[in-house]
């Protein structure tokens, strides 16, 4: 399995923009202190997404498309070559646009909908707009598996990335009322966008280590013992924090809450937080996946 470094990172939600602001939160201790999360938790929507986008197309773009465009533009854009492949991971893609269409045809009984709404509703729309505005012709693909999209990213890293020297990663979701129609859905899903270049490296960066059945299985394996820093999703953060009181255990939850693509942010956190060595831990429906980071 290959190691990969992360370059040209950008992230935003309603409160936080860029690697520097994430580093500030880390230094303040918020990422490891659940009692202080409330003050920084992201809102459902990101304000002022139109700012800084010159293209007139922006008035037609959804919040997700605007957010992904800005994340790529503020992150890897200037460093993307013609050969780079661009992968968008999104749990629900253009869900707000889709909700508007379903509402129009089922509630209002409309026989036609806005053409812009419809062509904006497909999962590949954000990369389509990015390519149009930036006049790019790169390989672009969207992967979407709902709440399990993080697992799809892990599969991408373990398999597809093996065949590539590097890849441009974009990820994100927008909030929609649609997501709250399901009363069994207890996830908090704010708007956020991430982009970076994932590049193969011989000896530095992040590497897949293995998969464990559950938290007990992971802890009893002893693998965490070799790390002073652990970055985990909220589901397992508390367990690890209690088990490893002398280690730095942090979570991405204050930045993306229950977002399905949180692992994509976690991949970048050790490098943007300037850690020497860290363990990245992601719980999925198939088990707990762990990744080693070496600076």
């Amino acid at each position, binding site marked *: 399995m290959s190691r990969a470094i992360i370059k040209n990172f950008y992230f935003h939600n309603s409160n936080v923009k860029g690697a520097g602001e994430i580093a500030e939160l880390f230094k303040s201790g918020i990422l490891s202190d659940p009692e202080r999360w409330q003050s920084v938790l992201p809102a459902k929507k990101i304000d002022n997404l139109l700012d800084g986008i010159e293209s007139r197309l922006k008035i037609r773009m959804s919040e997700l498309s605007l957010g992904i465009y800005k994340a790529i533009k503020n992150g890897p854009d200037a460093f993307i070559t013609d050969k780079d492949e661009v992968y968008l991971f999104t749990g629900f893609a253009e869900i707000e646009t889709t909700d508007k269409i379903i*509402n129009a045809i089922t509630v209002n009984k*409309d026989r036609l*909908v806005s053409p812009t709404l419809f062509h904006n509703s*497909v999962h590949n729309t954000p990369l389509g707009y990015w*390519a149009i505005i930036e006049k790019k012709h790169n390989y672009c693909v*969207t992967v979407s598996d709902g709440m399990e999209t993080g697992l799809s990213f892990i599969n991408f890293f373990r*398999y597809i990335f093996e065949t590539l020297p590097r890849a441009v990663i974009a990820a994100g979701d927008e909030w929609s009322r*649609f997501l709250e129609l399901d009363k069994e859905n207890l996830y908090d899903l704010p708007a956020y966008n991430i982009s970076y270049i994932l590049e193969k490296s011989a000896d530095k960066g992040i590497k897949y280590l293995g998969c464990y059945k559950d938290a007990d299985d992971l802890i009893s394996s002893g693998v965490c013992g070799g790390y002073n820093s652990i970055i985990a999703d909220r589901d397992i953060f508390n367990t690890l924090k209690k088990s490893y009181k002398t280690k730095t255990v942090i979570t991405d939850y204050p930045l993306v809450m229950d977002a399905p693509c949180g692992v994509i942010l976690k991949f970048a956190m050790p490098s943007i937080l300037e850690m020497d060595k860290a363990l990245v831990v992601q719980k999925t429906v198939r088990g707990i996946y762990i990744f080693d980071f070496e600076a």
Partner: protein
Amino acid sequence: MKKNRVFIIHSGVATALGVDAESSVDLMINGLTTPYFPEPDSKYTRPFYKVPYNYDEYSGAVRQEAIAFKLVDDISSFFKDNKGVSLFLATSTGGIDESEKVYVDLLAGKIKYPLMKKHFFSGLPESLMKRYPGYFSDYMTFSTACSSSGQAILQAFRLIKEGVIDKAVVLGIDTIALTTVTGFDSLQLVCSGKSRPLTNGRDGLTLGEGAGIVVLQNKQIKGDEIEVVGAASTTDGYHISSPDPEGNGQKGCIYKALQEGGIEPSQVDYVNAHGTGTVMNDQVEIKTLKMIFGDNITVTSLKSYIGHTLGASTVDEIVLCEEMLKRGIICQPKDFSERMDDIVPEKTIEKRVKYFLKNSFGFGGNNVSLLLKTPN
């Protein structure tokens, strides 16, 4: 480094022509397919093609699941000796028709429904993992509108070729949804009757329900399997729902696929076109194909028979091509007329095809071309 070869060792299909490739091609040769014309008071305003099968044996499953279950059952012999295979899913609509059915009641708070589990992409792969324990090791769902299953095949092909995995199951599926019928109609891309791709009389597409499954593997079983020899994808960077009128993105994509396969344009015998039947799509695609292949090529679109099955269209049309080309023929519907160009045959012809190309072009200018080699 020596690359692996990639063969299609099992396949299955579900379209308006039926739920197996053999009888589907029989129908292509002997008869005509007619889309379903909704009643005047129906919520659907345009005709569409539907899979003529009720899937009663899968009670409790939503239609998208039932179609997928049957396709997996159709290739169950493969799983007798193969477990833990990677699953590459593809869909454009993700079973959104189920959400449409419950949306009003959910909005009014009248019912509870596990929308996140049943709809929007997360539902189907987990249903497959649960129903067929051990069959699949992991999954990924590709969604690039009409090129979705082309992308899934491209990725599976590449991983097998590079030796990362040795086999993969690719399943593409899209059911009919009011969202897509109304949406395409709003873009003025839907015809009022049966679509007539690659003809001068074309006036839009007819949507179709469809699905296809293929098992890709790094070695042959019987020696007569179709081989995937090239796969490429580009982005137009031109318009969110219309192709670049100059066909530059499509041209680059086709050339890359040919280059990967080490094949000259003159060696390609047949192109199974994206051929949606919309004025613009067919115009650009034929222009692009003429630029690359000149007049020495045969081009048809299976959407004449099954409609546009969106994210499933690449894989279901490849499965139909597999059977059609095995019989040494290239089918055209019996009522086919007013062809756009001489490279489009006027009727079903006999032709021995060695190399053929499958094109898929999706919204956002997402182009996929797959180059395949038959055992002929």
